């Protein structure tokens, strides 16, 4: 997929940035992973079925919530925001938007750091692994990598 500019009605319009497409697809996947965990937090799905690891241990630990808010709910919200930002950033009039690029970078970096902290808790504090949490950590890391081209967009500016 190319990213060359083209005209719409005589005005130059940038091609849809591929990195934002990747972010959108990954955020959609991450959203459902987080939604799955959140549905179990709400008691809609019964015990979490895990092939490996022990999600129940992780999900029932005190680290599974921040105050009254389940961590999975934060994940759902975070992925919705990233999905919305990337989707918006694909629309013709926002394809060169520095603000959306900056928000994507900050959002993915914040999500990645939070996810790294949760992974640390799994490894060293709870000492149990939930593959859905690991999957989410991988997805947010990939989203961050896919957001790096936004740095060039921020520097180039338009």
């Amino acid at each position, binding site marked *: *997929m*190319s990213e*060359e*500019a*083209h*005209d*719409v009605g005589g005005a130059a*319009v940038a*091609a*849809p940035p*591929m990195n934002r*497409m990747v972010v*959108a*697809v990954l955020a*959609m*996947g991450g*959203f*459902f992973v987080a*939604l*799955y965990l959140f*549905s*179990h937090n709400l*008691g*809609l*799905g*019964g*015990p*979490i*079925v*895990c092939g490996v690891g*022990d999600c*129940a*241990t992780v*999900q*029932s*630990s*005190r680290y599974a919530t921040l105050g009254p808010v389940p961590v999975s709910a934060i994940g759902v919200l975070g992925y919705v925001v990233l999905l919305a930002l990337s989707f918006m950033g*694909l629309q013709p009039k926002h394809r060169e938007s520095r603000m959306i690029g900056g928000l994507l970078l900050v959002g993915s970096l914040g999500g990645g750091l939070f996810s790294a902290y949760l992974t640390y808790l799994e490894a060293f504090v709870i000492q149990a692994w939930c593959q859905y949490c690991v999957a989410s950590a991988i997805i947010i890391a990939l989203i961050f990598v896919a957001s790096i081209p936004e740095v060039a967009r921020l520097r180039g500016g338009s």
Partner: protein
Amino acid sequence: MSRSDERRKAREQGGSNMTKFYVILGVVAIVGIGAVGYSVTSSALGAAAMEPVEVEGLDDLTLLAEIAQGVTKGDEDAPITIIEFGDYACPGCGGFALSVKPQVELLLVETGKAKFVFYDFPITTIHPTSFLAARTARCAQDQGKFWEYHDALFRNQASWRLEASPIANFLGFGEDVGLDADEFEACVKSDRHADLVTANMRLGYELRVNSTPTIMVGRPGEFLQVPSATFQGIQEAMDKIGSPENAGGAN
């Protein structure tokens, strides 16, 4: 190629990329909706937690005898052992637990004449939640409250035995008997003890248990199956086992 042709081509290229993007995004969305929807609407309980699991070594009777473990009440050195193979969702077992077991405990176990051993024997074909119930009792055992929880399950049997998803009931019973809620819930919502319950079921089948409650009375190597799960039946079986002509005899 003219400038307008290039613009048209670029527009088409951009549109084509967006079309591919929407298709991929749609596929991810459909898969996600399907997976989460299936998780929520299908059996509310994990299959592995509800059913017997594969446990290696159960075909070897010596190994089976080591893996299967009953829970004992009373003096380990009591001369007579009273065994129950029970199903927490079975009304007959509920009746036994509420009316016969207290007499057994008071008159035979607490007096040191016998010890009482409970083995899980969930009949999952007619009681779909009984395997889970047996596991939860073992989770309570992890916290040293097996008998309190065991009794709570039977005492409240009518409230959960027909529920499709009695997990909330089980967690409530755990709270009632003073279990650590987080630890108990983590155990309940996992496959923990599925192997043990499976082994106990297998032991029952090997001993030709085909209904619950099945009561056996005896000592190692010589057990009588009690024809009726009543206190009188148990007392009679104990008399037979204890009588000189049966010592070292009946199996």
